[in-house]
């Protein structure tokens, strides 16, 4: 089922949670709503589910206006961050719930329910746990039960509200991959909310970045990561170094480095900043770039993060650069060592505004 949002707005008292949102989710897509807490992503998801009603705008399901449909008529599966399993029911009863509450005419027989629940529990690799109670399961297992329960009623849309937020990183990683596989097998439309950019990049086909109730950018993960249209998106999708851009003699500089391009010069604005990701900083011999001192080295698995104090920069705002473990093994940067910096890529934004 395809979903379309047209001019959705919602206020909570004085606070505008979402403002004038337009979004199209094609059938079978896996979309991430990404943003910091308070950006309106959960509100938007709850509006799609029918758990909140928008103050303005329309929700379209397959082109039909579903704005006023109650949640139980929308045929959506909803998965909460804290699982919301019914704790007085066994795992089997939890998954069977949606089938057992159907009106008598549509309700499958007890044998059919048993068969369906068992096949779902197999799908989530918990067929051994049917008689257990939620309290006896780990967080990751509980969330898989919640997913099986949501899938039991054959939803057209699966909505997940920070589904992996309460899990530790190992389990989270595993479940992300598993959700992606499940989505590819079953072809429902999925929308999930997350504040974790890595999760969004790993799982989703399309990322919708939200900020202060508005859509900041929408696109495939690589596009949003590599070509952010605003400083906000650039900052939110990974580590960045922020440096002021200085205009001198009709050219643009960051420190001593000339970053003049048509784009950086074109605006003519005075207060620009350049955003540079840690892996976009090139480290070479001192003479070959912006002189800097290594002030910290941290090995993080396959990468090595260096903190660098560039000449003319305040000491308490060091730059972060990342190099590969292999290169580090070969060259051995030490604390106190003098190096020279260059930038492989950068992007310039006016302070507090859109891309230049």
């Amino acid at each position: 089922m395809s979903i379309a949002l047209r001019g959705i707005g919602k206020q909570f008292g004085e606070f505008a949670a979402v403002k004038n949102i337009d979004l199209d989710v094609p059938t079978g897509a896996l979309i991430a709503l990404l943003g910091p807490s308070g950006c309106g992503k959960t509100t938007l998801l709850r509006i799609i589910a029918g758990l909140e009603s928008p103050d303005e705008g329309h929700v379209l399901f397959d082109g039909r206006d579903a704005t006023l449909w109650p949640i139980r008529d929308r045929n959506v599966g909803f998965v909460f961050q804290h699982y919301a399993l019914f704790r007085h029911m066994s795992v089997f009863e939890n998954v069977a719930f949606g089938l057992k509450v159907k009106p008598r005419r549509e309700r499958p027989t007890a044998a059919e329910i048993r068969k369906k629940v068992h096949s779902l529990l197999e799908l989530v690799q918990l067929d051994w746990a049917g008689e257990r109670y939620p309290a006896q399961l780990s967080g990751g297992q509980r969330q898989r039960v919640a997913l099986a329960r949501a899938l039991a009623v054959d939803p057209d849309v699966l909505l997940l509200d920070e589904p992996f937020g309460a899990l530790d990183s190992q389990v989270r990683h595993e479940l992300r991959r598993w959700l992606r596989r499940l989505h590819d097998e079953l072809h429902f439309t999925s929308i999930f909310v997350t504040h974790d950019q890595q999760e969004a990049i790993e799982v989703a086909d399309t990322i919708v970045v939200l900020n202060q109730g508005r859509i900041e950018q929408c696109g495939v993960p690589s596009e949003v990561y590599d070509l952010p249209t605003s400083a906000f998106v650039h900052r939110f999708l990974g580590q960045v170094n922020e440096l002021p851009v200085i205009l001198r003699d009709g050219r643009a500089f960051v420190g001593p480095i000339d970053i003049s391009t048509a784009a950086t010069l074109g605006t003519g604005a005075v207060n620009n900043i350049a955003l540079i990701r840690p892996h976009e900083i090139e480290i070479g011999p001192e003479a070959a770039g912006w002189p800097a001192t290594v002030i910290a080295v941290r090995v993080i698995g396959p990468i090595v993060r260096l903190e660098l104090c560039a000449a003319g920069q305040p000491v308490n705002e060091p730059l972060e650069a990342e190099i590969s473990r292999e290169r580090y093994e070969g060259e051995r940067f030490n604390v106190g060592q003098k190096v020279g910096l260059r930038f492989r890529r950068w992007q310039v934004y006016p302070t507090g505004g859109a891309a230049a």
Partner: protein
Amino acid sequence: MAAAEASQGRRARAGRLLLIVVALLFLGLFLALPLLVVFVQALAKGVSTYIVAISDPVAWSAIKLTLLVAAIAVPCNLVFGVAAAWAIAKFEFRGKSTLITLIDLPFAVSPVIAGLVFILLFGARGWFGPYLRLHHIHVIFAVPGIVLATIFVTFPFIARELIPVMQAQGKDDEETALSLGATGWQTFWRVTLPNIRWGLMYGVLLCNARAMGEFGAVSVVSGHVRGLTNTMPLHVEILYNEYNYAAAFAVASLLALLALLTLAGKSILEWRQPELRHAARHARDRTRREKT
């Protein structure tokens, strides 16, 4: 150094012991001793006097009236308590804090005043007095008045018990049930009620204990008609004022016994339900998670 630590440890142990002794002494003096006195006095003139006292027809009618009043008041407050707790815990609406304050009102107001309010409303010269007289409806100095006063006084018990339980559980379970296609009614019976059942039972027990034991408000509206509008607490008072101590304490011991049974019921519920401890832990985990 080691000696200092040892003396500190001794002092901590002594402090703990002192606290326990003080608490036990206090409990014994103010709770256990009076309760014991009731039973001793009741049986002071022998078992036969005791049996005569509680099998007296007037005493019996008081017992029956007390049970009847509790049987009406508790279900009324059960329905109201669940509805109010649901509204307060799961919805945002204007006047919510006023509602919470109103629920607490019976705790704050003296029961005597509660009784007087009903006299002012339904008494012969009260607001609705002429209308009631015209239609031959007796509220004050009759059973309906006693029921009304009891409902008023026991109003907060169930709601107060349920509000924190429901607030701790949040709305996720109900929203999940609705998203799975359950109707509101199915959601209430299959999800909400099982989630609150222990809190609910506890509230019912407390409400029942108070409904049976209420004196002040009931005394004002009852009129003390022997065999008709006397509840057990009122009957005890009458017997006592007539210097019939043995009978007074005999009926009092029955009331105390009902109270003890209620408390025992509550303990059994808690003891038999590891789920209760579990639920408490769950609620704690949840608040901790929300804090981080």
